[in-house]
């Protein structure tokens, strides 16, 4: 069982610049969301959440039916659907298609699903260049890092970091003004858009009754990725489905507001198939890659399957007291924060990152702001008990088990308990902080035992 990356977490906690960046950015996103969902602006907010939850529940519980409907409608609009079990199958498909079309360059818009399968790295091994085009993603791709936040990937970097990265990777003169940095990126990426053979996007929603993918964004890079090259590939997890285009009235009202406080993001693209006969532009070929990569495993448990309702708005990260201290890179997988803490152990072996469900104060803020009402704290508790069960089976915690058995015995014997309490009160201040106590004491001050215990006070009161 791997433990929490304590050293790296300590480093993050001791970095005042990073602490300020995380705190300020998540705080701002919290404020924006709060303004956008307040009753005066969106009186039906709670009702929309309930509807979103019901629609997702219904879709996930009938996932095979809606996947087949989606597939039939994509095909009816001239597109193709490619089911992939894992990242390797996605890479094989894209490489095959690239080879067939003699493609060298892929432009890519932001997609957590593609991050999840290390899409770019897999293709790079075969000399196929995939360029991230979302500004934040482009910066972190140049810096060889992974996203720090689901919607704000470069949240942890300053303009000075960006200046260094651009100077080093692009060979441009040092530029520290974000507006000019954006212009540099725009110019480089505009060329890529015009040269690219294939455009890859993610999908925020898959619309079963339309055979469509819906992509929301602010920059225009997803529009460019899906419209400039001759081939468009959308890569999405199978859980992104919703049954009907009309359901967007519920989900689009929630997604932008929960993520950045925008009633609608700048661009919402509703795309189905390649360009039609009389359309002037658009791709000639359209492929929808539907990825499992562990998702079907999450369907088995009726309670835990709600983890798949997530629409990746990032609100739970912004509101999480743990994320706001330890940041995104201390989580073991691309999905960080509370949603990462519940899906990482389920996608991977539960023992692999068993510490994750425990890294929570269970304050419940995540559940309160989740637009699709995932019961994150409840799932954290459920996963904790599963991790503990596995540990017990593996007998890895003999000492812990012994301690709890002793505890149970003492609690069942009042005289021993009282005696222990009295001895403890005398000894506790004298015990030096060594062994396991050392770590505990490094973050806490042991309160001085009261002069009289509750039992003693009670007895004295009775005597009066």
């Amino acid at each position: 069982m791997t433990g929490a990356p304590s050293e790296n977490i300590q480093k993050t906690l001791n970095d005042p610049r990073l602490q300020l960046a995380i705190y300020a950015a998540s705080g701002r996103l919290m404020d924006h969301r709060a303004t956008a969902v307040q009753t005066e602006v969106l009186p039906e907010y709670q009702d929309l959440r309930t509807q979103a939850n019901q629609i997702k529940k219904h879709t996930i519980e009938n996932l095979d039916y809606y996947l087949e409907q989606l597939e039939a409608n994509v095909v009816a609009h001239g597109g193709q659907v490619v089911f992939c079990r894992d990242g390797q199958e996605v890479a094989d498909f894209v490489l095959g298609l690239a080879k067939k079309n003699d493609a060298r360059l892929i432009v890519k818009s932001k997609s957590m699903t593609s991050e999840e399968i290390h899409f770019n790295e897999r293709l790079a091994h075969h000399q196929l260049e995939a360029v991230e085009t979302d500004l934040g993603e482009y910066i972190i791709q140049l810096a060889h890092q992974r996203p720090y936040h689901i919607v704000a990937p470069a949240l942890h970097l300053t303009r000075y970091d960006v200046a260094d990265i651009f100077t080093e990777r692009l060979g441009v003169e040092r530029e520290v003004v974000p507006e000019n940095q954006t212009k540099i990126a725009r110019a480089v990426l505009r060329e890529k858009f015009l040269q690219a053979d294939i455009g890859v996007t993610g999908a925020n929603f898959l619309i079963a009754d339309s055979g469509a993918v819906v992509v929301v964004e602010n920059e225009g890079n997803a529009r460019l990725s899906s419209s400039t090259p001759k081939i468009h590939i959308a890569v999405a997890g199978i859980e992104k489905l919703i049954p009907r285009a009309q359901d967007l009235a519920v989900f689009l009202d929630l997604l932008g507001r929960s993520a950045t406080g925008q009633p609608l993001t700048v661009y919402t693209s509703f795309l189905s198939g390649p360009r039609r006969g009389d359309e002037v532009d658009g791709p000639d070929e359209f492929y929808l890659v539907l990825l499992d990569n562990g998702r079907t495993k999450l369907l088995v448990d009726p309670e835990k399957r709600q983890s798949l309702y997530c629409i990746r708005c990032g609100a739970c990260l912004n509101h999480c007291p743990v994320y706001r201290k330890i940041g995104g890179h201390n989580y073991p997988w691309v999905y960080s924060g509370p949603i990462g803490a519940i899906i990482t152990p389920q996608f991977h072996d539960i023992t692999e990152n068993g510490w994750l469900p425990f890294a929570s104060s269970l304050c419940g803020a995540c559940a309160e702001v989740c637009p699709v009402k995932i019961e994150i704290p409840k799932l954290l508790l459920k996963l904790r008990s599963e991790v503990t069960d596995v540990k017990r089976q593996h007998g890895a915690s003999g000492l812990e088990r012994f301690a709890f058995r002793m505890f149970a015995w003492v609690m069942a014997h009042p005289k021993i308990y009282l005696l222990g309490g009295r001895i403890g009160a005398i000894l506790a201040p004298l015990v030096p902080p060594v062994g396991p106590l050392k770590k505990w004491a490094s973050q806490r001050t042991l309160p001085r035992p009261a002069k009289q215990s509750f039992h003693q006070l009670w007895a004295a009161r009775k005597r009066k």
Partner: protein
Amino acid sequence: MTSRDQILADIRTALGRTAGQRPAPLTAPLLRGPRFDRDLYIQTFVQRFEKLAGKAFAVPDAAAVLPQLSPLLDGKRVVASHAPFLDTCGITALPQVQSGFSGRDALRDACAAADIGITSADYALAETGTLVMLSSRQEARLVSLLPPVHVAIVPRSRILANLDELLTLLPKPAEQSSSMVLITGPSRTADIEQILIRGVHGPGEIYAVIVENA
């Protein structure tokens, strides 16, 4: 077994379902009506559009469009879509305006070199200040995307209250077009230190001209 069949089989096993089993009916999503009077559509649209840092004007009729736009278009390279309404407004007759592309590559090169792209819009949503563009023979995707400035000339009759009204009118947008895009403000990013910057990949400036008697 193919990956497709494997995935569908895994799903069915996990959910205890059989192939082709129909789901229980799902209630239709509640679509909201307008929150304000139809007389206020133009005013609301203009207000919201400008709040997003766009510039919006309402003009009485098609003849008033050119006088409104000429200061913006003077001396610029302009690409216009094939929307018939742009002919009505006299846009396509201007000497600096290129229009009527038949080939995709020619259109793309012109858009990439243009200062301004002019389109109409299939719909506009008052509540959010949104332009709705369906790709078609008349409206290409790239005219509203590649040039740094986008101008949309919209007949008043195309203004709807909100997204809900759009989805009531177009319950299945994919039947009309391969692409429907909602444009809500100029292209923007806040990826560096959360500082708002406009015009990262799409147009950094957008204009809407609402034609009242159209």
